[in-house]
């Protein structure tokens, strides 16, 4: 079954994976550390950066997942190593940077992607659930970014950070209070760090993404679920991971050398869809599925 809306006649798509927007020398010599880079959107960033020529350090908690990420990058002709760390653990983060530095050289690009998300009503959310999502995203981004910046400043070199946020940071996300807070924090952290490190030549930008289904998302590769998602998005389709990875790589490249403190949204206008007179509002608590149901 097609993943596209049956009513859409002019759906625009990005060029194929093998036709990236840059040659493999754009980021040659750069070392990119991607947190949560073994799967999902982190892997999308890692693959995009590798296509542009960067060597990749795939950081995550799971040896299996980071190894799978490395295999994927290598299968595409890239160079990558796996490194294990919990981004909430400052010492572990510092140690991970040491390991990457020995294997590939100093990290010059940091992609903060590590995060988690699951629907839960705010009034029944446990403190552990709240902390798990917010601390991975907020503390993890903070700890990795500051470790990165200290090292770049110490060696007197410029650097680039790209953060992964979400399209719901300006609207809130009912049924997802932890992620709504965490992802919005990443946008403002992006701006503040861009201010802090402007003089040192460290650029910090962010990508706020919409639906980019992958193996770890609820709809996975289920064609019917994906078709339902496509119908609800103005662009008539979901995002494709290469589009996300390429945008991240663009922001990390010299092509964007003057861009810092910005958040670019890539969501097919999903965040903007609304009808003035729509179906009745149903509070998350009264829905069969907290995030709502596809039709």
């Amino acid at each position: 079954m097609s993943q596209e809306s049956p009513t859409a006649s002019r759906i625009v798509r990005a060029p194929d994976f093998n036709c990236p927007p840059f040659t493999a020398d754009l980021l040659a010599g750069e070392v990119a550390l991607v947190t949560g880079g073994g799967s999902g959107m982190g892997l999308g960033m890692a693959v995009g950066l590798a296509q542009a020529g960067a060597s990749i350090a795939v950081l995550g908690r799971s040896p299996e997942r980071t190894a799978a990420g490395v295999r994927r990058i290598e299968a595409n002709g890239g160079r990558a190593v796996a490194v294990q760390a919990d981004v909430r653990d400052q010492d572990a983060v510092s140690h991970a940077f040491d390991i990457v530095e020995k294997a590939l050289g100093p990290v010059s690009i940091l992609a903060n992607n590590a995060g988690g998300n699951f629907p839960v009503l705010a009034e029944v959310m446990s403190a552990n659930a709240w902390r798990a999502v917010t601390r991975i995203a907020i503390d993890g981004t903070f700890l990795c970014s500051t470790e990165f910046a200290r090292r770049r400043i110490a060696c007197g070199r410029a650097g680039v950070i790209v953060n992964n946020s979400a399209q719901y940071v300006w609207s809130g996300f009912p049924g997802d209070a932890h992620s709504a807070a965490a992802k919005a924090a990443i946008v403002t952290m992006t701006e503040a760090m861009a201010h802090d490190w402007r003089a040192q030549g460290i650029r910090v930008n962010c990508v706020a993404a919409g639906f980019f289904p992958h193996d770890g998302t609820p709809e996975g590769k289920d064609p019917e679920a994906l078709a339902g998602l496509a119908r609800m998005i103005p662009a008539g389709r979901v995002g494709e991971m290469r589009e996300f990875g390429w945008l991240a790589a663009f922001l990390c490249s010299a092509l964007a050398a003057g861009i810092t403190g910005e958040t670019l949204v890539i969501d097919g206008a999903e965040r903007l869809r609304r009808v003035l007179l729509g179906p009745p509002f149903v509070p998350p608590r009264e829905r069969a599925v907290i995030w709502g149901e596809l039709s």
Partner: protein
Amino acid sequence: MNATSGWLAGKRALVAGSGAILVDVAAALRKGGATVVDSSRAATDDLEGVLSDAEVALGGNVDLLVHGGASIDVRASEATSLQQWRAGVSADLDGRFLQTAAFARRCISVGRPGSVLYLLPSRALAAGRVGRATSLGAVTNLIKTLAVEWARDGIRINGIASRACEDPASVGLVVRSSLGNLSAYLLSDYAAYITGMVTGINELATGEPT
């Protein structure tokens, strides 16, 4: 061969509106492989005519529209006459909307996708910028609205709001170059999933919705 070559290969672009930055952006589009007609210095209300002339010059339908709007004078609100107010806001807001609607009508009528980019003034507020701020607010929400209205027609629309757009001489060459590269990227099919967005370049603004 430059890093952006091929991004806009085969595309036909019309550059309209006003602003010195349009020269940079037109050059970036050409570097990306587009054929470009620059009508930015044309003073006309015949917006259909601008498109028709561009189609003749380009040898086919216009695929990309870049609009620089109009520069609105910096002036204290209470010292702004109705005539001055309307002249500025009309030139910027009406000019962008009417030209873009004419472009979209042509795309829709022939079943072709299209991509629009607005170059906008900075979102930073300062005394005397009420005209610019008013028009910018209107245009920003216009971008969001048109993105949804035309998404299923394959027409995308985005904006770059930056000091570089209103006064290129006030920023460095690196920022200007990045603006050109970002313009080419957003107009290209590589940004096929980006629509309804307004971004800056190096504004270090505070948490504004995009």
